[in-house]
């Protein structure tokens, strides 16, 4: 059985536009995989495929050997794949605590246990004081953190994070990085999409670079940052320097 999250030959077309072209990569258990590429290269579409938000036109997505391509997001969550969004999508009219409880609707855990877990995660994110605050009243960075811990509520083995550092204050950005590392050390895998290349290279165990919908390079941060195709398509001189 192949362990972890494996994408093989994933393709997705929107009308005449091929957003993802036969993308293949693996997220081994306990790793942080950075997903980089220029705007429009297919990163967010790939994340949407890996979470069941979109159905691939072709290809396979397996989690610990179980085929999930074409299944609903619910199935992905049940198999331990959760996510955050490119633009923060917390539910603004409910509190921070209630936001965390929403993904747990179909779990069989007791209410007390769910509350205990939610409160633990709010503490982990430094949001305990905002437990009963409406999500809309949190700052942008706090909303990012809330969205992150909401993705942890169902006890995932892999979290897909779309631009977690975008528009976040540097100190909160550091908090976010620390929390990702902490959870990773406890065994959770991450796929992180980001344009913040130096930060992402330091955080990731492996990096996948996409361009024009295809995976053009997959390797260690060192290998990817030195790959000529990556430099040409995305990093340019700045990437080489970093």
């Amino acid at each position, binding site marked *: 059985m192949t362990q972890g999250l494996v994408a093989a030959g994933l393709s997705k077309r929107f009308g005449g536009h091929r957003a993802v072209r036969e993308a293949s990569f693996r997220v081994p258990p306990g790793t942080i995989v950075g997903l980089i590429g220029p705007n429009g290269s297919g990163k967010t579409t790939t994340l949407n495929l890996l979470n069941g938000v979109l159905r691939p036109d072709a290809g396979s997505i397996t989690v610990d050997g179980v085929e999930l391509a074409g299944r609903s997001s619910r199935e992905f969550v049940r198999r331990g794949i959760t996510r955050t969004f490119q633009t923060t999508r917390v539910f603004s*009219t*409910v509190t921070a605590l209630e*936001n965390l409880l929403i*993904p747990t609707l*179909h779990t069989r855990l007791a209410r007390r246990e769910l509350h205990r877990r939610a409160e633990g995660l709010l503490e982990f994110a430094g949001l305990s004081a905002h437990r*009963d605050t409406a999500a809309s009243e949190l700052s942008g960075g706090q909303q990012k953190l809330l969205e992150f811990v909401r993705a942890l509520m169902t006890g995932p083995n892999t979290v897909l994070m779309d631009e977690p550092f975008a528009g976040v204050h540097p100190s909160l950005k550091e908090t976010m990085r620390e929390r990702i590392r902490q959870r990773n050390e406890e065994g959770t895998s991450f796929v992180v999409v980001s344009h913040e290349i130096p930060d992402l290279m330091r955080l990731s165990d492996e990096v996948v670079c996409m361009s024009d919908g295809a995976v053009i390079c997959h390797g260690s941060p060192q290998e990817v940052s030195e790959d000529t195709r990556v430099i040409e398509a995305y990093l340019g001189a700045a990437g080489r320097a970093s």
Partner: protein
Amino acid sequence: MPRSRWLGPAAAAGVLLVMAPFGYTLKLGIVTTITAALMLALVAHGWNMLGGFGGYLNFGMAVFFGVGVYSSAILNERLAWGMWQTLPVAAGLAVLTALPVGLATLRLRGHYFAIFTLVITFLAQSAALNLAITNGASGVYTTAPATGPRPIAALFYYCFLGFVVLATGLAYAVQHSNFGYALRAIREDEDAAAALGVRTTAVKLAALLLGAALAGLAGGLYAFQTGYIEPTGTFSLGLSLDVVLVCVIGGLGTWQGPLLGAGIVVLLEQWLRTLFATVHPFGWTIPIESNRIVLGLLLVLFALYAKRGVAGIFRPARGSQLNV
């Protein structure tokens, strides 16, 4: 749990205590008016489950109410079942009617559901007019479960009051449960809720069925209260619109909304009826039906300027405004 969460239920319990003797202490006409408000509140609680908490506009509550009305009336007329025997059947058949409606439409988003529910109201009215079991336009008579004006008025006052208390408890539980949070997530951002693993169609369907059960129950009681039912009055679009009005005025997606809204709408309707009957500007007679124009204007004003309804006055604002 914030202490403020108990203020509302405590106030509601206080109002309930005050209302407890009303069935026998107030004038018959006032008891009947309050009973009408309680019935509207019960159906509005049903609408609020999906419409208020979940943000899905439903114009078909009269169908589920009407199925309850006819189920009780037919069982009473043909099989001589008593009121209490017919009520579970009325609620059950309303749920069975809502099931295919929900399965067919709740995979779709927003407006498709609203349009479909509008259409089924006319289909149901047409079916009741033409089917033999409903006795067509001739309607169905029910036997009152009590004799004398006061006992009848008091019986239905207490029946509706009891079911409204239960429905309010249910709405409170929904509002503060993971199910309720999921419904609010659907109202705000259904795609995000689905991406987080919420079975959105199942959640919406459960809310619709819960609402249909309450409407069916209200219909079952109404069949015995009114004594005679016919298709046009039973499957009336007016009722479907009234419950939307009640929830918008009272406060969408809150357990207090249907209670406050029903009280305001029924009192306002009564006052307007009296006003239009007595006031004759320039010698003209204002048709009593003109009260619909006033209520319609009120709906528009609340939708534009007071989206959180009357219940919003008592609760701090939270995030984006509620919309349907």
